[in-house]
């Protein structure tokens, strides 16, 4: 892969992180509420930690199985195409039914990590970065043998961890900055002012990411 291609993929991972971070559905208003309820900035930053851990785990839950799958060298393109289709399908499903699973409403406000994990899964946040990740996975040579395959698995796992960490760091930086601005300067009025209905945009983002990845994949096939 070219350096430019690789840089574009990393940019996508960071950009999706910033996008998730400013989305109120991914939790920054919880950090504001925590800071205000405890009257302490420390509580605000304290809430960011479980929010990021939950998000990180949700990313890994999606990426890790693919890290293992990618060892099936001869199926690599099919796996990538299948992943793209999965992302598109999830986006379309969110478009057709924008409502959220009722189970989310049962998570108590004290379980921020669990909440963050569950909303990221329910929204397909991990799926959004999956095509970027697959693009970064190093394709092994066809005849490299088992030892090399094991090396590739390790490389893929390490890459999954790195991608999830970079994405989550971008997400919590954006969300944390926004939470701090609202808490310290803008006031809670901004909570309602800042909320746009991103459901459709979010679903379309999934479809778009999946479609672009699928197009690149198919173009490379021929």
């Amino acid at each position, binding site marked *: 892969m070219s350096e430019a291609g690789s840089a574009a993929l990393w940019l996508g991972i960071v950009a999706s992180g910033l996008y998730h971070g400013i989305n*109120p559905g991914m*939790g920054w*208003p919880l950090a504001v*509420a925590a800071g205000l309820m405890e009257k302490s900035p420390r509580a605000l930053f304290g809430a960011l930690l479980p929010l990021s851990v939950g998000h990180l785990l949700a990313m890994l839950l999606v990426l890790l199985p693919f890290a293992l799958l990618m060892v099936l060298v001869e199926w690599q393109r099919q796996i990538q195409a299948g992943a793209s289709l999965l992302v598109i399908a999830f986006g379309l499903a969110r478009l057709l039914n924008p409502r959220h699973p009722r189970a989310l409403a049962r998570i108590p*406000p004290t379980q921020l990590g669990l909440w963050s994990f569950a*909303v990221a899964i329910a929204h397909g946040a991990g799926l959004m970065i999956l095509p970027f990740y697959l693009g970064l996975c190093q394709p092994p040579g066809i005849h490299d043998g088992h030892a090399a395959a094991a090396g590739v698995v390790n490389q893929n796992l390490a890459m999954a961890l790195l991608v999830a960490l970079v994405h989550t760091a971008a997400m919590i930086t954006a969300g944390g900055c926004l939470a701090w601005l609202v808490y310290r300067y803008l006031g809670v*009025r901004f909570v*309602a002012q800042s*909320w*746009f209905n991103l459901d459709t945009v979010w679903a379309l983002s999934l479809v778009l990411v999946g479609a672009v990845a699928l197009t690149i994949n198919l173009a490379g096939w021929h």
Partner: protein
Amino acid sequence: MTMRPDPTFHASPKLAMEAPPESFAYTLLLSPDFSKPDALAVIDVKPGSKTYSQIVHTVTMPNKGDEFHHFGWNACSSALSPLTGHAFVERRYLIIPGLRSSRIYIVDTKPDPTQAKIHKIIEPEEVFDKTGYSRPHTIHCGPDGIYVSTLGGGGKDGTKGPPGVFIMDCETFDVLGRWEIDRGPQTLHYDFWWNLPRDYMVSSEWALPPQFENGIVPEDLLGNKYGHRLHFWDLRARRNVQTIDLGANHQMALEVRPAHDPVREYGFVGVVVDTTNLEGSIWTWWREGGKFHIEKTATIPAEPAPKEKLPPLLQGFGAVPPLVTDIDLSMDDRFLYVSCWGTGEMRQYDVSDPRKPKLAGSVHIGGIARRTPHPNGKAFTGGPQMVEISRDGKRVYWTNSLYSSWDDQFYPDGVPGAKVMANVGPNGGLELARDYFVSFPDGYRAHQIRLEGGDCSTDSFCYPSVWN
């Protein structure tokens, strides 16, 4: 589904207070002899308007005998809960349960309150089948749906199984099912409310249907058989975590009013009558060290009255009990309004120190023995009952009917529907507005009031107020 949060949703109570004042008030009308269908009246409350203090629109229901009592919105400020993050529902539909019929009407108030119309009717069978409860009463808009408390269980007289709370979808209005997972010792129900970020709910007790539908049962009251306990719940776990008995003589613990600011972990409940001395009382509950506590913080004595001024029910006592039937807390949690339906008084307590309420204002109007007329000269029968406070705390509205069959026992001469308003002084004090007096069509009584854009017994908040 909207693109932006509803402009009437507010993150904190302070922001709700700063919002534009109400232009319309919705009031439920009931036909006490069931000869006419119940109705929703839309009243113009915009000062200076040509139709100020008049009914400008009426939504008449297609059935008779529903007995409207309380009602509420499909969605409110709780939709801004940070746990939801998708506040794209509208405060648009009024959920109006028939307390006697168990039928629920959904009334659409858009595009304009003066064009409100029925959007959907949920027949009683759906409520019975999906919940096993009957006689829906209090409506609260939660972040995850509409919560409805019921007064009756299953069976014809509502005594088969305990009453409880069920949930409705806030967009489709489907009845989703029972809320409780573990009700503990709770067997009676009346009001409920919550603190959303602190994740607890508080519920109160009135009575089972045979104890109220055909009038108050004096033997049950004197036998202390009406409700006298408060239940505290883990809201998300849907579990009763604590029950406190106020003492059997404290009959009928009704309205539950938690502080609006979610950092304040206290609230109030009103007790209708103490059977040892007929006084009414206000109780303050609070949470400390993970446990709930409660104490009686204000009492209102009965007033002696000559026998000829009393209905048969009270003649043996020679006194009028205050009958604390509704209370309401201002948005800044400063003033608690207390309806004394028997003695005909609206009291205003300063509850800045919640465990030491101080009487700050009072007006007399109506009353069993006093029968105080409105300052504009018009007769006001019944007494102050359902009370609602404007978001900015400057106006307090109330109506005069309690419940069809009970009205007849305490006010045998009838309770023609009336609604009045009092202005609140900047540091307390109450004065009835001479130019606000709503008369309702003949044969109707007036019950709960809801204000356009939310009021002090509707909205719950997930962010504390930041006072500068």
